[in-house]
Structures are given as structure tokens and as C-alpha cells.
């Protein structure tokens, strides 16, 4: 699904990613953990195609195709989805209008029929119910005035509607209480199948009780310094990062 080879990225002359190697296969869940400032969000942004980064080395393949030259929208249409650590508030833009435009852009690209207003509403309302989002959200501007938890669930709603082949969730669990955490985790588990993959960036082991990772990676100072299975997350929970950093 995803193959990252020796990826190096700078922002304003400062090297943030210092040679990332990561390989994600279909049907896998990978967790990325690491202290603040390690470069986790930078990695997520570079995968989604945010401007402002200088990619100085390396390659990123999605299903065998190099995506570094693609625009953010082309990547989204190819099935990359980033759940933002800080979802953006867009006053004045109606949530329904936004989401339907996005869904139809992606469907069109995949050669699927665009959804009309009726069918879209039926689908989105069913998904909202699963995520325990009130229907009135559809009438409100995108993320405007949403609580932290609502914004995160809205990211999961968008993910569900867009049905991406590669979802990158950047600290979607931060700031959620245990109920909201379970709702978000259920949302991820529902889209999970043998033809897609998820990368879950988190600080906390507790999310990984619900979204069980096949691999856990520790990102520190722009490099993956340790990879393991889910027991690594438990070790980190217990011992913190210091023992790894000292060895790195």
C-alpha cells in the first residue's frame, strides 16, 4: 500500500524528517508514537501534500506510484486521507455542501456515480448516527464553533464518507474522553478491511486497546528509532521514551 523510502524534509532550512523508512501493507494498522516535536505531524502533512516543505531526499509510493509530485487533491482522490490534528474551522461554508462536494470529487475520480442530494443525505445521516453526531451539524459551517471532540468526530465522519485506502490519523484521540475515544475507534475499525490501511499517530497506549496495531513505531528527532509489535506501546506506556532515546 505505502512505501516510504529515506524521506527527508525541511521546513525553512530546518531538517525535520531525517530519513524515514516505513512500509505499510494492505490490511495493516501502524501506530506511530513519539515525544512532541519529533516530526509526526510533519510526516502526516508531507504524505497529504501540504505546501511549504522542502523534500530533500527519498520517495513515497502509494500502490507503487510515486505520489510526491501529486497535489493534495490528487492524493486525496487516490485514496490518501489525513485526519488533522487541528481540524480547520471554515466559517460560512455549510458542512453538507462541503462534504458532498468532497465525496463527489473523489467518487468522480474513481469512476463512481456522483451522489445526489437525497442519497448523500441518507448515507451521511446513517454514518453520523454511528458516530453519535447530531444531525444539526450538517446545517452548521464546517468545524465552526465545534468542541474539540466534535471536530475529531467530524474528521472520522469525513474519513468514513470518503472511504480512503490510506488513512493517517494525527492524534485524533487527543482530548477525547473514553466514550468519544471508543466512538472514534469504532469508526476506524468499521472502515478497516483487507484492501486498506491506517496509520495512527498517538501519544497514548489507551487508543491502541481499541484500534489494535500490527506494528508500533517510535519516531524521534525525524527518524524511526524503534519498531515492534503492540507490546512496544505497553513498554512505552510503562517506561516512557527515555530508555529508547538514550540508546538512539
Amino acid at each position, binding site marked *: 500500500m505505502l512505501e516510504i523510502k529515506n524521506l527527508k524534509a525541511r521546513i525553512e532550512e530546518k531538517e525535520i524528517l531525517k530519513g524515514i523508512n516505513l512500509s505499510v501493507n494492505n490490511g495493516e494498522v501502524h501506530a506511530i508514537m513519539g515525544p512532541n516535536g519529533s516530526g509526526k505531524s510533519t510526516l502526516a502533512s508531507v504524505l497529504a501534500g501540504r505546501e511549504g516543505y522542502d523534500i530533500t531526499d527519498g520517495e513515497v509510493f502509494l500502490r507503487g506510484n510515486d505520489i510526491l509530485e501529486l497535489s493534495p487533491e490528487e492524493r486525496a482522490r487516490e485514496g490518501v486521507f489525513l485526519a488533522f490534528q487541528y481540524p480547520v474551522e471554515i*466559517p460560512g461554508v455549510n458542512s453538507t455542501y462541503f462534504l458532498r462536494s468532497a465525496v463527489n470529487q473523489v467518487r468522480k475520480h474513481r469512476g463512481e456515480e456522483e451522489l445526489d442530494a437525497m442519497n448523500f443525505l441518507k448515507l451521511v445521516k446513517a454514518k453520523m448516527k454511528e458516530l453519535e453526531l447530531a444531525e444539526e451539524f450538517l446545517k452548521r459551517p464546517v468545524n465552526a464553533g465545534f468542541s474539540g471532540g466534535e471536530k475529531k468526530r467530524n474528521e472520522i465522519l469525513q474519513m468514513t464518507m470518503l472511504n480512503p485506502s490510506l488513512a493517517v490519523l494525527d492524534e485524533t484521540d487527543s482530548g477525547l474522553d473514553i466514550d468519544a475515544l471508543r466512538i472514534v475507534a469504532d469508526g476506524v475499525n468499521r472502515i478497516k478491511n483487507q484492501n486498506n490501511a491506517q496509520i495512527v499517530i498517538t501519544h497514548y497506549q489507551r487508543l491502541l486497546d481499541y484500534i489494535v496495531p500490527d506494528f508500533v513505531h517510535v519516531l524521534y528527532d525525524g527518524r524511526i528509532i524503534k519498531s515492534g509489535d503492540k507490546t512496544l506501546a505497553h513498554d512505552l506506556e510503562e517506561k516512557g521514551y527515555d530508555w529508547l532515546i538514550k540508546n538512539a
Partner: protein
Amino acid sequence: MSSTTVIELANDITNAFAEITRIGPSMLPLRQAGLDRFKRSGFPTTNEEDWRFTSLKPFTEIPFEIMTDSGEQLLDQAILDEIAFSQHDTDNLVFIDGHFSDQLSQISDQPEGVTVSNLASAFDIIDNKIGLLSGKDENPLIALNDAFFTDGAWIHIPANHSLSKPVHLVFLSTAKKDGQASHSRNLIIAESNAKGTIIESHISLGHAAASTNVVTESQLEDGSNLEHIKLQDQSPQSIHLASLHSNLGKEARYAFHSFALGAQLSRNNLRMNLAKPGIDCMLNGLYMTRGSQLADHHMIVNHAAPHCDSHEYFNGILYDQSRGVFHGRILVQPEAQKTDAKQTNKNLILSEEATVNTKPQLEIYADDVKCTHGATIGELDKDAIFYLRARGLDTKAAQQMLMHGFTGEIVDRIQHNAIREELNELVWSRLENEHNLN
């Protein structure tokens, strides 16, 4: 043909004045006082604080002619069918160059007791009401209007009555010569618990640097509820000068929406007096300018009683070398405890040469109040564009969506569904066509 009288500014307006005074002799004292005041003051200059950012030079440097007659003969019904809101079921009062057109107007079955007419037809009944709300204002443009106004709307909704349909005031300018000036005057009285929707459109058919100077007085008595939508869509050469003077009674609700899309220079003075407790007053506006256009909204909201809410929301989209001016003064008097006053002015600057002057001015003499203001001047939010692109929208679609959202913030506050929809489409087609978004 329109007959006009050439006058030098503040110099020899005597002939025109003599001609105008034939319209409604009972108006003579008001006119004379206005003329005298104007002669003393002349036009405001940028040395005055209230006019610092807006120079009237484009207007005052050309020969000034009062349009003492109407260009009605030049028009036919077909023109009216093309203007905004014409496809809705409204009552229409049509004014051409400040003169009422009986032929083009259409007033139907408003409820018994409700008056929807032109002002000149009622001069003898209402002469003591004209100028009551605007009279204390020092603005020389009001003095000029006092002296030269020809006609305008007279809307009177008695207590517990409602307008059965929106009233559309259509102000058409046929001016063909630079410097031609028309002066209109509106009087709106909503008695206690009266309700209504009023649309005010200003449109020019020619391309002359002609001016429209309109003064509107609106009195909203206790419990009344008025929605007032103003669309200024004049030609890019026009000068549009307007002032609104409102006095609001207990628990009155007034929603005033200003869409300033046209004119070389437009200035809206909004003067709201919140005289009694429990009022809800909203001033909501959108300006979109390009070329060398200037759109100025200058408001004073006077909180003179406790427990009143006032909200000002103005968004501007500016292209080219155009300019936007927002001046929002909120005055909270000592007795106006529990005031909730909110003011926002957001500007989207889409060219390096466009400028905005935004000036909030809070003067608060009560201690238990909530007053907030915020202003932003900037480009489209880059993070928002990336967010939309990360969901599959291309850059252009993302920009369009954000601009639509930006105008939608204002348009969506219109309560009347059909009018909101029409303005939404109008604003959007303007952005798409004139600004080449597609």
C-alpha cells in the same frame, strides 16, 4: 428629456432650489433651513474625523446639477423585469432620478390602515415628521437632502399590523451627465408590534458620474419588527451617499442588511438610537469592490437603555486598487447596563493594491456591559484551502468555496427566505462572472 439646472457647488444653487420648492410648499421651512446649513458648511472634507478615509472629491470636483425632473419617459416596464427581486411577489415603489413613477409602481392589497405610498403625495399629513430623526445630525449631506429631496417612500404600519408582502423600493438613476444629482427621502414608521420586510434597491441605467443622495428615517415603536435589505448596485461611475436614522422602541427588532456592490464611491451612514430596553438591532453588510471603487460604512449605535443587543457584521471582498472603509462607533450610555454589543469586520483582500481602513470605536460609560469587536484583513485562509484540497477539492474549487462561505456568512443572516436566496445567487454570480472565478 430631463431638464436640469446647472449650479456651481455651494455657490449658485438658487435656481434649482426655486424649482424644487414647488414640490410640496409645506416643506419650505425644512428646505430653507437645510439650504442655509449647507451653505454654511459646504461639503465635508477629509480633515474631518468622520470623513478621514473618504474623500468626496470625485463628486465635488464636477459641475453639480440637481435633477429637477424625472427620466421616466425613457423607461419601460421591461427594465423593471430585469432587476433583482422583480420575480418575487412584492409591492413596488419605483423612483426615477428621485421622482415617483406611478406608472411603474405597483401597490396591491396591503391590509387596511397600512400605507405604502410615495412621500410627496402625503407631504401635508407628515410634514412635521420629516427630519425628526435626522434633524440633529450635522452631516452636510443631510442638509443638502433637506433642501433638495424630491420624493421617496412613505411606509406606515399601524400598531399590530404587518405588511402582507415585502415592499420593494426601486431607485433608478437615468443620469447621462456627470454631476447630475438626485435626492431621495424615505420615511418608515412601524408602530407598536408592527412587522414588515422592506427592500431598497439602487440601480443606475447610465454610466455617468452621477450622484444619489438618500436619507431614510425609520421609527420602530415598541415590539415592532422590521427587516430592511438594501442593495446598492449602481454603475461603477456613480456616487452613492446614504444615511439611515433609526429610533427604536422597547423590544423592537431591526435587521438592516447592506449590500454595497456598485458605485465608484459609496458611503452609508447608519445612525441607530436604541432608546428603550430589550432592543435587538443588527447591522449586517457585505461590500465587494474592484477597480478604484470605494465602499464606506460609517455607523453610530447609541445604547441609551439597558438590556439591548446590537450586532454589526461586515464582510468585504476587495480586488484591484479598491478600498473599503468600516467605522463602527458604539456608544454605551451610563443607563445602558446589560448592553450586549458585538462588532466584527472581516476583509478579504485579493490584490496587493487594495486597502481597508477599519476603525472600531467603543465608548462605554456603563460598567455591566459586554462589548466585543474584532477586525481581520487578509487573504484567503491557507490552512482552510489545504484542508479542502486534502479532501479532494482542487485549488479553484477550494477558493470558491471559501469565498462563497465568506459572503454566505452575511447573506445567511437575511431572514426572508426568497430574498436571501436571490441575494445569494446574485452575489455568487457576481463573484463568478465579474471576478473570473470560473
